[in-house]
Each structure stands twice: as structure tokens, then as C-alpha cells.
């Protein structure tokens, strides 16, 4: 004891001495030991040699958020990825997907050489050829179509050259390629994504997305988005959402059929019946308007409706009505509406949950309206317009093709500005469109589309698609069916211009090869140049002039070297060095905010719609009786209270809650709730929904080892009560059956799901995408040994790759926004039947074709559309005739 006492005594003495020494300060400081500065990214050192690694800025493309990144390169090899501190919206952070992205580069199952099919389609027999041979072959096929078109003097033949993409971040490059060829047949992927959200927003206020000021808000209503894990701008939005909730004491309320991580993070979570979000939003609007909690001035000045119109329209949407439809208690709807309207500033956010239903565009428009009537538009902490920047296209830029493409823009969906890509194979199979050359870029519809087996059947059929090409560098379920593969490089080895409106600070960024393309592979941009040069070797067709680039880098210089402001800072050379422009300031080490050299926060600009039109621009302008300011036949702004504002990107330059374009085709011009067919399912049936997780994209990341280890199986979420009634226990094999067929998977019992819903994540259950995604190496010793990948041999501890739900999901299209209604498939869930094994999937192409017929009945010319919209004041017998537009 005495010993211990001595120590304690000594410690007191030591501390006293220490305090005195501290007081002495600098006089006692070591001159040899210098504190390391804490660098927030941008520098890294080799663990072997200690040498500083080369830091190369790039823009991420592990998913579509396009975060700013820095690649650390050592000996010509990427050893680490981290966030770019100069990117104002992602502020030096990458998500798990982004951090793992370099594994794409060195993946042993990457396609490193052009391959020409030698067996039957999908048989897996290939011949290795050179890029030169491959581009010559493609050019020959394209030239044959062009020659045929010219001989027949029929430009519509050019649309037989089709490109289908899933993720196009070429900055206009792919459009240039197709338009140079004279084709308008560019088919995107957006209708399996959030296109009905876009169409709910665009006619309302111009842009297709919102940019919430999460960090400065006080109240967030989250409708069906899992913003902390996925959704548009996940990383930057998630950062600022946490800033708002933790740093600004904001409240977040989530409506989601599933307890996502975002719902779990929320102060309150409600699980509404699927597809009833607009009933809730309209009921909240009803409360806000009837209780006088709305912003009268904003509605009067900045919308195309009156308070009286809104009150009349919203009258039926009582909280009690919404409770009946959604299951969310009326008292909570009423309370939350009041909180939302009286807590300033506030914002909503929504993503695929509300809009991926039949009539999904209405749902988005209803949610958007909550921000409008409360005056939270373009306010600090409110619901803001997206901020992006453009870049010029090199001149000359080819015009669009002369003939419209019906598969690019199906005429029965005139309001679907982001088109209806899901319908392409059905239209071709029914003879509504013809294909000669089908090109696939960053796309995997055989995995990622609803009723994916229809795409499989289409791509296997040489009579429907005589020549097919994929530019993928991975053997996806779709790529393995094509005739020719001309592999692109990964996103870390190529050039692209970028500007994502992922925050409140608009900026440009770039993608550039952080290493030399691996093994002599060739980026897609060079492939396009080569193909065009071979299609039109002497320029006689007038096509080559659009691709007279000395190099890919020359192409990029033409984008960036003449942008005012950037030009003075070095143009493309600045972008190569810094990766982003402008650089607003630094990220504060204290609170993560953007600050200037004095440490003061750089405040974003708000009220963009109120920007005044300069007097010089008003010269010659006319103020119309309705307030619109027109000049040279175009509307350039709106006059409100004597001031000339630029306003919003709508015909009236105001927020158009009333959408005349909707009414033209027999849709309700105001946001409404339409009861979905799935709402009237039988009691024994359930609704199948899907979701994304935080470490995977829809399909591209399944081959990344870091991510596959974290998440590789996707059991079906079922509520315990429902499971009990069905005789299902946790982990049991279950059969899930839709009208198309069935799948066999395992049950995951959780209270975090609506009792009427069964939910299965995407990203699992691959039959392609390499050894890791398919776990084929575990089928047999010989296959196990293929490639001799020691990671797979020794470290893949899991033997469950999951089961993909898309084959049993029905095609169903929102007739307004064109979105696939992912969350409307009615299913039965039962214990597995005798003979069922995990992963069994049995579906019918014929049944899917019936779904196509069925969904056309909801299109604006269909009988079910008319039956569902009797309230619309339109001449039903004289709706516009379906007409093809110029496609893209």
C-alpha cells in the first residue's frame, strides 16, 4: 500500500511540475519534433518506400452520383481512392462503392480484348480480335444501313441503328455519335429509374430534380427515399442530411413501406400502403390550406393557381381519407402537416418510393406542392432548384436525325420526356420497330429490367436484332448474348466532362485516366472516333467532320478550353490538375463546411428564380398581360410586383401546379391521388417491392470483392405476423409467385416492413458478371480452380449469391411519366413446394407480352386511362393523335 501511496504522491508532484512546465511554454518546446499537419486528403505515401504517391483527380462513377475523387497511384497502379477535398458538394468523401471502385480495374474477369462470337448467341464461344478489326466490323455493319437508307432515300432506315444505354456519362459523346450517323434511336434507362419523378417536376418548375438544403433546414419530410444509402446524390445528400439533423437539430419524418436505414435514422417512421404517398401529401396540403398555414404571397406571386382553386381541389383529400388509403393515422398526418408548415425552413425529399407506380408522376407533383404552398422554394434551408453547369459541345455538332424513332420515344407516351425504354423489346417483337444494329453501352437489361427474361429472349433472337454489339468491359447477363464485344475501359481510365447538381454549389468536374488504360485497352470515346472514321473514311458522307478530333484529349480540350472563367484558370489543364471548377474554398476541419481563407462559411446562393433580368436584356422585351416577359418570340422571364425576374423554367415562368400539358392528354392537370389496381388486391396477396442497399448499385458492383463480402444475398423481407399466418419461419424457403411465374428464395422476418409487402433487394442473384458475382467457382472443383484466383479460392466464405426478383416483376408503365411501376406487382407468398430449390425461377415470356398489352390500356389512348380520368375536362373523342417525336 505504501508503494501505491508513494506513486500517487509522486503523480501529484509530477502533475504540478507539468503544469508549471506548460506555463513556461515555448521556452521548453523541442526544436526537433515538429507536429504533422492534419491534411484533409489529397496526399498519401507508399507504405513500402515512403515516397509520396501521385494524386490524380477524377470523378467517380461507381454509381451515378459522380462524386469528386482522388486516385493515389504508385508505380502506375491505383493503390487507393479517396474523396477530392476541392469538390464543393462531396467535400472529400466517397462511399463504400466509390472506395472499392479500383477493383473494377484489376478484376480478373474484366473483358480486356474485343471478342467476336463464334458459337450460337449466349453459348459462350468467342474469338479474340483486335480493336482495329472490331471497329472495322462495326463500321461495316453501320455503313450498310446508311447505304441502304441513302439508296431508298428513307432516313427512317437510319433508326435501325440503335444504341441502348444504362449509364451514359459521355457528356454528349454518345448523342454526337448517333446523330452523326443520322439515327435518333437512342434508348436510355431512365424509365426503370426515377423518370416519373422527373415528369412530376419538370412541368411544375422546370428541372427534373430538387436540391434540398439539408444542412440548413429544420424539418424534412422524406417520401420513399433511402437517401442515406442510395437514391440520387446519396453521398452529398447524406452528408448534408446528417449536418442538418445533428448540426442544426432538424427533424426528419420518413414514409416508406420498409424500415430503410434512412427511415431508421428518422425521428418518426410511417409505413404507408404502397403507392399512397400522394394521398398523404395531398391530405397534408389540405390541412395546411384549410388551416391557413400556407404562404399566401408565394402562391399568389409564383404559382399559376389561386388559393381558392387549391382549397376546392384539396377538399376531398382529408386526413381521414388518407388514413383510409394509406393506413397512416389521420391525427399524425394532421400533426405533421402543421409541423411542416410552421417549422421554417422545411423541405421534402422523395425518390423512387412514390414515383415508381402507375401514375407515379402525380405522386411527385403532390409532394412538390407541399414545398410550394409553404413558400419553402429556393429558401435557405428549403427546397431548392438543382445547380449544375454546362459545357459547350465541339463544333460542328451534328443535328438530330431526320426521322423520329418510335422505340426511343414511344408515341403513346407524349408526356414521358425521359421515354419508355422498357417497351423497346416488346415493340420490336410486335413489329412496331425494326433493328439492324443494336449497340449496348453500360447496360444490362437482361438483369436490371422488369420481366428481364423478355430482354433475354429479344437479344437471343437474330431475326429481331441481326447484329448486336456491347461496349461493356464485363460479361454481364446481356453482354454474353451479343455478337461483338468492343470493351470500354473502366471509369478510372477514361475521359468525360461532368457536372452533377449534387449540392448547392454548381461546378464542373472531369473524368480522366488516372492510369494508362490497362493492358492496351481502349476507351469508348476513341472507339467512337475510330468507327466514324471507318464509316466515312474520306468524309464523303458528311459524317466524319463531327469526329475530326486529333485525340480524345483534344476532344476534351474543346469542351473546356473556352469556358469563361475556367479559360483564364487554364481550361482543360486546370481540370486535369484539380479535377473540379470552380474551387469555392476549403473544407473546414472543425465542422466540414466550405470556408474561405478567413474561415468564414461560403454561403450558397438562394432565390435563383428571383434573379432580376438586367436592363440591357429587357431592351425590346414585352410584358404580356399575364406577366410573362417575352422577347423575340421566347419567354425570358416574368414580371411580379413591378420587378422583372427570370422565374422558373416553365411556360409561365411560374410554378405550374396546374399543368395544361397533362390535361391535353386527358390526365388531371392538378396533383391527384389515384387508387392503384394493386390497392385492391385480394387479402391473401402481397405487393412485391425492391430496394437498393448502401454498398451496391443495381448490378455493376456484384463483382467487387470488398462489396460482395459485405452484401451478397437478398432474402425476402416479410413481417412476422404475416409470415406466421402463412406458416413461414425466418430462413425458410419460400415461393413468391406473380402472374409471370415464380421464384424461390428465403424469408427474412422483420418488423421493419409493411405487413402487406414483401421486399427483396437488387444487386444479388447474378447469372453473369464474373466468378465472384455468380459463385460459379463453387459448383465444381474444376470450375473452382478456374483462373486460380486465390481470393476466391481461399477467402470467399459465403456460398449464397441471392436470388434476383426482376423476372417475376410485371411490366407496368406510368402513362404520364413513363416510369416502370416497380412496386405494383401483386404476388402470393407461400412456403416452398416439394421439389423447390433455392434460386429456382420459372417465368413466361408469353405472360409478359400480355402485360405489355395491359399497360397500353393505361396509355392516353387506352380505355383504362379514360375510365380512370372521367373528372378531366377534355374532349375525349378528340385527344391528339399519337405522333412520333425526334426521339432524344
Amino acid at each position, binding site marked *: 500500500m505504501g508503494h501505491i501511496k508513494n506513486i500517487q504522491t509522486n503523480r501529484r508532484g509530477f502533475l504540478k511540475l507539468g503544469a508549471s512546465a506548460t506555463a513556461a511554454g515555448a521556452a521548453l518546446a523541442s526544436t526537433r519534433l515538429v507536429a504533422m499537419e492534419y491534411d484533409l486528403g489529397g496526399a498519401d505515401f507508399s507504405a*513500402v*518506400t515512403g515516397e509520396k504517391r501521385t494524386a490524380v483527380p477524377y470523378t467517380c462513377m461507381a454509381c451515378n452520383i459522380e462524386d469528386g475523387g482522388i486516385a493515389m497511384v504508385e*508505380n502506375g*497502379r491505383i493503390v487507393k481512392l479517396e474523396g477530392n477535398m476541392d469538390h464543393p458538394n462531396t467535400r472529400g468523401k466517397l462511399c463504400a462503392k466509390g472506395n472499392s471502385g479500383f*477493383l473494377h*480495374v*484489376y*478484376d*480478373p*474477369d*474484366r*473483358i*480486356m*480484348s*474485343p*471478342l467476336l462470337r*463464334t*458459337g450460337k448467341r449466349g453459348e*459462350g*464461344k*468467342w*474469338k*479474340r480480335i*483486335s*480493336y482495329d478489326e472490331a471497329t472495322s466490323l462495326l463500321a461495316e455493319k453501320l455503313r450498310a444501313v446508311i447505304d441502304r437508307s441513302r439508296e431508298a432515300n428513307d432516313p427512317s432506315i437510319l433508326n435501325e441503328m440503335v444504341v441502348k444505354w444504362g449509364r451514359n456519362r459521355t457528356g454528349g459523346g454518345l448523342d454526337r455519335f448517333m446523330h452523326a450517323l443520322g439515327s435518333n434511336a437512342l434508348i436510355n434507362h431512365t424509365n426503370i429509374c426515377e423518370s416519373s419523378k422527373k415528369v412530376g417536376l419538370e412541368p411544375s418548375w422546370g428541372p427534373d430534380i430538387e436540391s434540398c438544403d439539408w444542412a440548413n433546414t429544420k424539418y424534412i419530410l422524406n417520401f420513399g427515399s433511402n437517401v442515406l444509402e442510395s437514391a440520387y446524390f446519396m453521398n452529398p445528400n447524406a452528408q448534408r442530411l446528417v449536418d442538418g439533423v445533428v448540426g442544426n437539430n432538424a427533424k426528419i419524418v420518413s414514409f416508406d413501406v420498409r424500415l430503410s436505414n434512412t427511415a431508421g435514422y428518422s425521428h418518426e417512421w410511417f409505413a404507408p400502403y404502397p403507392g399512397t404517398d400522394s394521398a398523404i401529401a395531398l391530405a397534408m396540403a389540405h390541412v395546411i390550406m384549410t388551416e391557413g398555414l400556407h404562404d399566401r404571397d408565394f402562391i399568389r406571386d409564383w404559382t399559376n393557381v389561386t388559393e381558392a382553386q387549391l382549397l376546392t381541389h384539396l377538399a376531398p383529400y382529408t386526413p381521414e381519407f388518407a388514413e383510409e388509403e394509406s393506413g397512416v393515422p389521420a391525427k399524425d398526418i394532421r400533426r405533421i402537416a402543421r409541423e411542416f408548415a410552421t417549422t421554417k425552413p422545411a423541405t421534402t425529399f422523395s425518390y423512387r418510393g412514390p414515383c415508381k407506380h402507375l401514375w407515379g408522376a402525380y405522386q411527385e407533383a403532390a409532394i412538390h406542392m407541399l414545398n410550394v404552398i409553404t413558400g419553402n422554394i429556393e429558401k435557405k434551408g428549403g427546397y431548392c432548384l438543382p445547380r449544375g453547369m454546362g459545357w459547350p459541345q465541339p463544333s460542328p455538332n451534328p443535328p438530330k436525325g431526320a426521322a423520329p424513332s418510335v422505340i426511343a420515344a414511344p408515341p403513346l407516351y407524349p408526356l414521358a420526356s425521359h421515354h419508355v425504354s422498357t417497351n423497346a423489346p416488346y415493340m420490336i417483337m410486335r413489329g412496331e420497330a425494326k433493328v439492324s444494329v443494336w449497340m449496348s453501352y453500360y447496360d444490362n437489361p437482361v438483369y436490371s429490367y422488369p420481366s428481364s427474361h423478355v430482354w433475354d429472349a429479344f437479344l437471343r433472337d437474330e431475326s429481331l436484332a441481326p447484329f448486336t454489339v456491347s461496349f461493356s468491359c*464485363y*460479361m454481364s447477363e446481356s453482354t454474353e448474348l451479343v455478337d461483338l464485344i468492343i*470493351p470500354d475501359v473502366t471509369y478510372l481510365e477514361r475521359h468525360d466532362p461532368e457536372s452533377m447538381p449534387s449540392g448547392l454549389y454548381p461546378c464542373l468536374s472531369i473524368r480522366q485516366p488516372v492510369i494508362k488504360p*490497362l*493492358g*492496351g*485497352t*481502349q476507351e469508348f470515346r476513341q472507339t467512337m472516333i475510330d468507327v466514324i472514321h471507318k464509316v466515312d473514311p474520306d468524309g464523303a458522307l458528311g459524317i466524319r467532320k463531327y469526329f475530326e478530333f486529333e485525340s480524345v484529349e483534344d476532344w476534351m480540350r474543346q469542351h473546356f478550353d473556352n469556358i469563361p472563367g475556367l479559360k483564364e484558370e487554364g481550361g482543360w489543364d486546370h481540370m486535369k490538375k484539380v479535377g473540379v471548377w470552380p474551387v469555392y474554398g476549403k473544407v473546414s476541419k472543425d465542422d466540414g463546411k466550405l470556408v474561405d481563407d478567413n474561415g468564414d462559411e461560403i454561403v450558397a446562393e438562394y432565390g435563383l428564380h428571383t434573379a432580376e433580368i438586367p436592363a440591357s436584356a429587357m431592351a425590346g422585351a414585352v410584358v404580356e398581360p399575364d406577366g410573362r416577359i417575352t422577347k423575340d418570340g421566347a419567354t425570358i422571364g416574368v414580371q411580379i410586383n413591378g420587378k422583372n425576374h427570370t422565374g422558373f423554367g416553365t411556360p409561365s415562368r411560374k410554378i405550374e401546379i396546374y399543368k395544361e400539358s397533362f390535361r391535353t392528354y386527358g390526365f388531371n392537370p392538378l396533383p391527384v391521388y389515384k387508387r392503384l389496381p394493386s390497392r385492391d388486391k385480394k387479402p391473401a396477396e402481397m405487393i412485391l417491392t425492391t430496394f437498393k442497399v448502401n454498398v451496391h448499385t443495381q448490378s455493376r458492383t456484384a463483382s467487387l*470483392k470488398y462489396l460482395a463480402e459485405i*452484401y451478397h*444475398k437478398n*432474402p425476402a423481407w416479410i413481417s412476422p405476423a404475416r409470415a406466421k399466418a402463412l406458416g413461414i419461419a*425466418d*430462413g425458410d424457403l419460400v415461393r413468391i409467385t406473380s402472374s409471370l411465374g415464380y421464384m424461390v428464395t*428465403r424469408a*427474412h422476418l422483420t418488423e421493419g416492413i409493411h405487413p402487406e409487402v414483401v421486399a427483396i433487394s437488387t444487386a444479388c442473384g447474378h447469372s453473369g458478371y*464474373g*466468378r465472384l458475382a455468380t459463385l*460459379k467457382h463453387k459448383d465444381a472443383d*474444376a470450375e*473452382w*480452380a*478456374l*483462373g*486460380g*484466383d*486465390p*481470393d*476466391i*479460392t*481461399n477467402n*470467399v*466464405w459465403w*456460398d*449464397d449469391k441471392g436470388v434476383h426478383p426482376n423476372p417475376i416483376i410485371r411490366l407496368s408503365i406510368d402513362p404520364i411519366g413513363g416510369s416502370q411501376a416497380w412496386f405494383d406487382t401483386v404476388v402470393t407468398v407461400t412456403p416452398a413446394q416439394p421439389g423447390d430449390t433455392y434460386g429456382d425461377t420459372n417465368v413466361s415470356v408469353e405472360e409478359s407480352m400480355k402485360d405489355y398489352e395491359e399497360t397500353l390500356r393505361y396509355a392516353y389512348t387506352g380505355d383504362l386511362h379514360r375510365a380512370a380520368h372521367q373528372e378531366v375536362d377534355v374532349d375525349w373523342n378528340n385527344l391528339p393523335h399519337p405522333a412520333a417525336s425526334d426521339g432524344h
Partner: protein
Amino acid sequence: MQADKFVIPADMAPVKRHEKDTDVLRAQAGLYAFLGRCLEAEVDAALLSTLRGPLCKPLEELGVDLGDDVRSGDPLAVLADLGEEFAALFVVPGAVLPYRSAYETGRLFQPQADLATAAYRDAGFEFRNTLSGEFSDHAAVMLAFVGRLLERQVEAAETGDAEAATGWQRRREHFLQHQMGGWIIGWSRRARTCARHPFYRAILGLTEQVVWADICDIVDEKALQRLVKANRRPLMRQKTDHEFRKASGL
């Protein structure tokens, strides 16, 4: 493994056996060159012609069966068939990738490639790919490199430069042991197991035997055991925990 760290150790053990007969060395060089060519790229008309001509009898005498079609089938058909087999075996995703990096790390173009490049450079050779997706640590390039080293050794011996000849021999033996010995035997065996066409089964079998025989000639028993283990890479099955699966393990 840094590229610039590749040097032939000065204190490397002296060669076990000096092959004085340059004809033997030249034959070895030809053998390695032949194996390298067969595995480096698809069989073309010239190679097929050689297989049917000057190499036909020696291969038969060695008991190497390249398949009936290679011996006498329609040339265009056999070239197409072998091209398809080459792609499936060595190129297409799912193939038995012929790269040391892939074999040892599960990734393409790792420092193993730098080591190979450095060794080639140090001996006066530069690796250049002909088609995309070819790396310097390709088994066939390594085989060809050994063949070139043997040629240099012959040249030195024939000009009476014994010191240089020994240097080339050391360089070859070091490369065989340290850059090929730990993987190429196991890789050949795996590829042979997966090969459909008798031509590749034969060539891969020959590769395994030739390289292993040479390695046995140059390393001691202890080192040999290490190489055997490295090449074997036994499968490791994980125990499946059914309770873990049942809990859904999200």
C-alpha cells in the same frame, strides 16, 4: 515488389551444373520458344504448318498427341477451333488467366508484372503487347524469355565467353526459380484440366514437365518443397454455418 528492385543477387548460389553442350542448350531454347509461341497467341497458319511439318515427327516420338485435326484436319476449321479454345481457356472472363498476378493475387497487373518487366529489361528485352489485355507476367512470355536467355547463353559459350555464359545461366535459373517456379506448374496443371482440345492439353502438359524438370535441376530439396507447396494452392472449403444463414445475416 518494386520494379526497380529487380537485380540478380551477386551472391546467388553457383549454378549446380554447367551444361557445356551448346547443342543441348540450343535445343532447350527451341523447346521454350515453341512452348511460348503455342501459349502466347492463337495458332496461326504458320504454326500449324510447322506442327504438321518439321515438328510432327519429334512430337510423335515424344508421345505428344496434338489431336487428329491438328495433324490432318481442314486447316481453316482447325485454326478456328483452336482460336475459340484459346479464347475460352486464356482470355474470356472465367478463363484460367495466364498471368502470375492473377494466379497469386486474384487481380490483373500487380507488382508481379513489374518484376517480369524488370527482368526482361535487365536482360535487354522490352515487353510489348500485340493485342489488348496482354501483360508482361504472361506464362508464355516467361517461357519465351527463358528461351531467349538460353540463346544468349549459347551465343556467349560459342564465342568463348564463359563468364558471360555463366551470367546468362544464372539469370535464367534465377528467373525460373523466382518468377516461374512458384506458379507456372500449378497454372499449367489447372489449365490442362480445363482444356477441351488435345492440342492445349498436350502443350500445357509439356510445359509442366519441361519447366518442372529444369527447376528440379537447379534448386535444392528445401526450395523444391516450397515451390511444390506454392504451386499446389490447395482448395480451402469453408464450413457452412446454417444458423448464420437462417438468421438472414443482413
